[in-house]
């Protein structure tokens, strides 16, 4: 059957696997909107054209040809920006597939995070945060964007509350009836055991 299908498409060329380039492979985007300024000066030559959003944005840096020495990290939360374009040596993120170390020159990746510890290594310092969940986007130009809903430094967590929560959710799991209750109890157990191992490990 496969042989007949390939006979039916003799002249169709196979599209290349990457027909469109990744956004970080393109040259840096222009910082002024050329078509807008031209159209403006045609209609209103006497006034300066207003700034468009494009001029406020910093263009994405292109992928350098050699691996840079530092990783630039943007770590953001919905209510605050923890790290903004900070240059670090390495970050270890708690991805669903396990603890993932990100060094400069890491392959472009999107990873979903599970509740766990995020550590930022800069020189000899290491800062640890407990992340509830989120995503990390690693770009080919050694920029990493980490977005999380809630991230707290480990010293702000209370061990007794964590253990109480773990016991509470373990009992909830055994008494849960519907699928949804079971899922909620399981989430509670996962989060609290991750908190526990972060505080004790």
């Amino acid at each position, binding site marked *: 059957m496969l042989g007949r299908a390939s006979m039916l498409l003799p002249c169709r060329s196979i599209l290349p696997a990457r027909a469109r380039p990744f956004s970080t492979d393109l040259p840096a985007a222009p910082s002024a909107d050329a078509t807008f300024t031209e159209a403006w000066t045609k209609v209103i030559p006497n006034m300066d054209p207003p700034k468009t959003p494009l001029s406020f944005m910093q263009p994405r840096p292109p992928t350098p040809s050699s691996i840079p020495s530092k990783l630039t990290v943007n770590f953001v939360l919905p*209510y605050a920006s923890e790290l903004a374009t900070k240059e670090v040596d390495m970050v270890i993120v708690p991805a669903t597939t396990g603890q993932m170390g990100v060094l400069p020159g890491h392959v472009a990746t999107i990873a979903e995070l599970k*509740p766990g510890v995020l550590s930022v290594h800069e020189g000899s310092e290491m800062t640890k945060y*407990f992340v*509830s*969940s*989120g995503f990390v986007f690693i770009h080919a130009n050694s920029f990493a964007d980490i977005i999380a*809903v*809630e991230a*707290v430094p480990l010293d*702000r*967590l*209370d061990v007794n*509350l*964590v253990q109480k*929560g773990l016991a509470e959710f373990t009992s909830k799991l055994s008494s849960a009836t519907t*699928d*949804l209750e*079971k*899922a*909620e109890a*399981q*989430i*509670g157990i996962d*989060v*609290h055991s991750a*908190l526990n191992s972060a505080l004790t490990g």
Partner: protein
Amino acid sequence: MASNAAVPFWRAAGMTYITYSNICANLVRNCLKEPYKTDALSREKVHFSISKWTDGKPEKPSFCSVFIRSLHLPDMVANL
């Protein structure tokens, strides 16, 4: 591409990623030490206004601001 990859247990139970993520964030906030905990609880608040419609016209909206923990969304929508 693997489109039939094993779904996470919460999606199999009918929960969306946003619900899962918010539940995780709430659980972490509940385990914070005291001064940080009260600050964080104010972040959990959801402000919304509900207006019921009858005969194609909206009635006066009611403003609520509730902690998302106490929201039982399916029940709330069913009671509207």
